[in-house]
């Protein structure tokens, strides 16, 4: 490996690390305020990206980048709040309704657009009506697990139905796609990566400022510590939780808009990114937004670094050598499991303060 390569690898490590940080922060922001692991986080990101893609590249009336991006963020925030309403607050019945629709779709043989376009609103209405009957149960306190997973499935299937085949890779236009390379002597790095990383760093810092310096951030901290006591401070706990879901959805779209121009995107990418976000958050410490961000940084950098290392090792073996790259995720996950045995609160998570 040449030194010049090393510079580009380092830049890639940082870029992916910061984007993973952004995804992990979304998980932590939601978890802290609501104790919900959002299994639809990756889908929110992918839906946002495709809303942007359709608005920005459609041949009929393409919108300029900033407008399309803003609309995509707005739409995803709305979806994030609906996610909380149907998949968390009224999880049990919604889950039942969504499963009804899934079964209907399976019976119909295809998940064609009609089933989804008619089925999803019908399920929502059914769920709402069932909730009104005020019979609770089914999912119990863990209803959100099924709720967010079911919501993720609906988002993904809906997207597949609207966009097309699940294996269609789309090249998403990026803000920095036209950037050339940066030369420093013999070292050459891609300007697109540098700009993307810089942009992501700004957003990560912005989220951290919201979390640690603003009134809304203080409210989130209070709700995370004690919901009942927060209400006694005059904090509208429900509104704060909705705000957290909205903030997480917005940050997911931004992460998506930054990462997909570098990687391609398809409607079924959601689960991959959900796992990345959850892994990074657990690695760093899911109860701390900063911890989760650092976890994302470590995971992103580790993936790139380890990938290149395994590549180099396979290459030493010559033509017939076993490609070791496929071992990457297994190694990363083993490291995570080992870490969680030794430090259950994550790498950077603080010691949980127990109630006395």
């Amino acid at each position, binding site marked *: 490996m040449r030194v010049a390569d090393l510079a580009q690898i380092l830049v890639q490590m940082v870029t992916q690390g910061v984007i993973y940080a952004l995804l992990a922060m979304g998980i932590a922001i939601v978890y802290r305020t609501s104790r919900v692991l959002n299994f639809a986080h990756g889908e929110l990101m992918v839906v946002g990206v495709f809303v942007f893609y359709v608005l920005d590249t459609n041949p009929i009336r393409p919108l300029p980048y900033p407008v399309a991006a803003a609309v995509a963020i707005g739409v995803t925030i709305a979806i994030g709040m609906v996610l909380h309403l149907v998949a968390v607050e009224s999880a049990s019945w919604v889950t039942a309704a969504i499963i009804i629709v899934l079964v209907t779709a399976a019976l119909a043989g295809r998940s064609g657009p009609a089933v989804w376009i008619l089925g999803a609103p019908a399920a929502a209405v059914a769920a709402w009506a069932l909730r009104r009957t005020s019979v609770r149960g089914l999912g119990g306190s863990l209803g959100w697990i099924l709720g967010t997973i079911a919501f993720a499935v609906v988002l993904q299937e809906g997207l597949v139905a609207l966009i097309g085949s699940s294996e269609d890779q789309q090249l998403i236009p990026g803000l920095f796609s036209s950037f050339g390379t940066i030369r420093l002597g013999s070292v050459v790095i891609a300007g697109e990566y540098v700009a993307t990383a810089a942009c992501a760093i700004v957003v990560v810092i912005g989220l951290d400022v919201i979390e640690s310096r603003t009134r809304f951030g203080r409210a989130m901290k*209070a709700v995370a510590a*004690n919901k009942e006591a927060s*209400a*006694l*401070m005059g904090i509208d706990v429900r509104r704060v939780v909705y705000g957290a879901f909205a903030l997480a959805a917005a940050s997911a779209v931004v992460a998506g808009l930054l990462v997909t121009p570098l990687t391609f995107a398809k409607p079924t990418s959601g689960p991959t990114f959900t796992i990345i976000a959850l892994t990074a958050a657990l690695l760093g410490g899911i109860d701390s937004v900063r911890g989760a961000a650092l976890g994302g940084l470590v995971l992103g950098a580790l993936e790139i670094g380890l990938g290149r290392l395994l590549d180099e090792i396979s290459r030493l073996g010559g033509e017939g050598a076993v490609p070791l790259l496929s071992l990457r995720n297994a190694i990363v996950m083993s490291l995570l499991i080992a870490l969680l045995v030794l430090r259950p609160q994550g790498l950077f998570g603080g010691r949980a303060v127990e109630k006395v």
Partner: protein
Amino acid sequence: MTEPRHYFLADSLVAGYVQGVDILQGCHIALQQGEMVGIIGPNGAGTSTLLKAVFGLVPVRKGVVMFRDVDVTGREAHELVSMGIGYVPQRDNVFPSLSIEENLRMGLYLRPRDWEQRRAYVVSQFPMLGARHRQRAGSLSGGERQLVAMARALMMNPEVLLLDEPSAGLSPSMQDEVFEHIVRVNADGISIVMVEQNARRCLEIVHRGYVLDQGRNAYEGTGRELLTDPKVIEMYLGTLATD
């Protein structure tokens, strides 16, 4: 401004935590402006539930809660706080991971601009808080936490303060200190409704008291009347007299 007909009133309250189980079966309490009222009763009488129902923390099934002639039945806690009603729960009443000062700031979440003025007032009432403002609330004793919780509720400059068993679990000397603070806060013009298990001490300092039994009003009167009422002594104070 004319005097409200009902300053603070809970009437015919039926409430409970679980559907079908009514802890309160038609309680009523009334509070005049500037007054301090105590609610006592044996375990399970529903005293704490009454306070929570009034504050929107337990669903009210029947009855009405009025504040300054406005029906506030079923309003959520955060709305009542912004209307000038404060509530200090018995347990989990501070943010243990935050410092005393941060706890006080949280208390003023709705009106951050009043910080300097409210902080000065609260520290004048509770000098200990000013001196130790950096200390983590989780490291305080039970009595000190109670004072922090009361101070935090006072940050919003409430008209009415609801206190749920402020002396529970405290040493006798700390109980004295907490009661002294409560009397002083009331003397400052803040109306107080207090639920207490230490019935005798409570009746000694309140203007009027209510005795609950099994979710219903059993007796009411001035603190002195109840302290000397043979029926109340026999039922509730006799066993506590040896405290």
